[in-house]
């Protein structure tokens, strides 16, 4: 069975500071990895994805993430955050275990302060 652990439930950070949101996963099969973002009062939208190839993937709004297979991690980073990045961020694992299924972590609330 797959599982996703987001190590921080809340991350407060000042505007223009760097941020890292941590994600670890567990799976017995190959996985695809995703980060989704949920802005206040909006639906979830894809931020970035890792399917194969380069382990460093870039997404929208200046975010990037690095897949580390040996550490089973997929941490999300941004070198300089904006107030508008305040949102809930979800790490997700997609794999085939008798059927295709995406499992989400509990989420990390990023709060950017002026």
């Amino acid at each position, binding site marked *: 069975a797959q599982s*996703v652990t987001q190590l921080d439930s809340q991350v407060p950070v000042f505007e223009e500071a760097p941020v890292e949101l941590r994600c670890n996963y567990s799976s017995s099969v190959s996985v695809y990895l995703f980060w*989704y973002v949920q802005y206040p009062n909006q639906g979830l939208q894809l931020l970035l994805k890792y399917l194969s190839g380069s382990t460093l993937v870039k997404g929208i709004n200046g975010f990037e993430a690095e897949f580390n297979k040996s550490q089973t991690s997929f941490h999300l980073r941004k070198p300089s955050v904006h107030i508008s990045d305040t949102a809930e961020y979800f790490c997700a694992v997609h794999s085939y275990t*008798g059927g295709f299924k995406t499992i989400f972590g509990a989420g990390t609330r990023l709060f950017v302060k002026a």
Partner: protein
Amino acid sequence: GAGVSQTPSNKVTEKGKYVELRCDPISGHTALYWYRQSLGQGPEFLIYFQGTGAADDSGLPNDRFFAVRPEGSVSTLKIQRTERGDSAVYLCASSLQGHTGELFFGEGSRLTVL
């Protein structure tokens, strides 16, 4: 708009009543997913359709929950004898093909059981 549409956006019902939640996916998307999101939690997988058939319904919590997708497009999530613990936001997502894993979410149906 060509996004995923969910209706109703809000539903308040009494304990013991029957509820239907509808999802209209993006045209041409063969895969459709239902998730449930409780306050402060990540989306919890309920069921996945590939075409008309339920490819994985392992996340349905009990036999009060049922979902259909008779023509391979619109899906309905049905909850019988609702309980207060069923209160949550029910999310629908569609994907072009199930194996790629990139999900497009609707804005959800908020269910409140009094």
